[in-house]
């Protein structure tokens, strides 16, 4: 799925990385636990999370994750977007709940990590 398709099905806003909407995503991982995210072995994984603070983007930076969707309308702060931009990340925000976001993306063919 491309970022732009994901944006459409989730009615999401792109907060950062508009220039990368043609990139494709195959797999996603949903968690609010950053230590859990830090155990992921591969890095071509999209993160779905309700945890919206500076440590979310720091965790992504360390784990080499490139794309995140903040669920339930969680607002990213300016410092978060600065770190995201510095690391060429794609940041989306949707009003959908975590469960709905996962359901929609799973149905659309996004694969789980485990």
């Amino acid at each position, binding site marked *: 799925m491309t970022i732009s398709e994901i944006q459409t099905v989730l009615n999401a806003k792109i907060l950062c990385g508009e220039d990368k909407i043609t990139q494709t995503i195959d797999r996603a991982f949903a968690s609010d*636990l950053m*230590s*859990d995210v830090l155990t992921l072995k591969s890095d071509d994984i999209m993160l779905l999370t309700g*945890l919206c603070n500076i*440590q979310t983007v720091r965790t992504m930076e360390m784990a*080499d994750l490139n794309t995140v969707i903040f669920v339930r309308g969680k607002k990213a702060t300016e410092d978060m977007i600065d770190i995201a931009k510095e690391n060429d990340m794609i940041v989306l925000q949707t009003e959908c709940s975590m469960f709905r976001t996962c359901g929609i993306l799973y149905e659309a063919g996004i694969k789980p990590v485990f």
Partner: protein
Amino acid sequence: MMNFEYPVQAGDFTNAGSASSSVKKTLKQLNVDPSIIKRVVVALYEAEVNVVAHSHGGTIYVVIDNDKIAIKLEDKGPGIPDIDLAMTVGYSTASPQVREMGFGAGMGLPNIKHNVDYLDVKSEVNVGTIVEMIVNF
């Protein structure tokens, strides 16, 4: 050989990870293999967050050689009474504030161990903790 030193403030979740971020940039510039960089910075970041979350503050010392990186995190604080227990997945004494930041699953120390080639944790209760790790390039 390159030496770096980073102070770490207790409870400062805004800046937690800035040392790890800086080490990541340096290793990238040195063209270290990306999978090794990831192991180093994931381990360092977990340890850095531990100093922010569980100690009263400390310092990170980084030494980069041609063939390895050696990192020492030294903090003042409550220390770890039972290191074997702290190394167990799921054991955590993290405060509600730390959990709100997305940490406190008791997965950090086991994940550090998993990512590094050498790990040594020394601690004295009510004095502080020293975590030393090495990753070979």
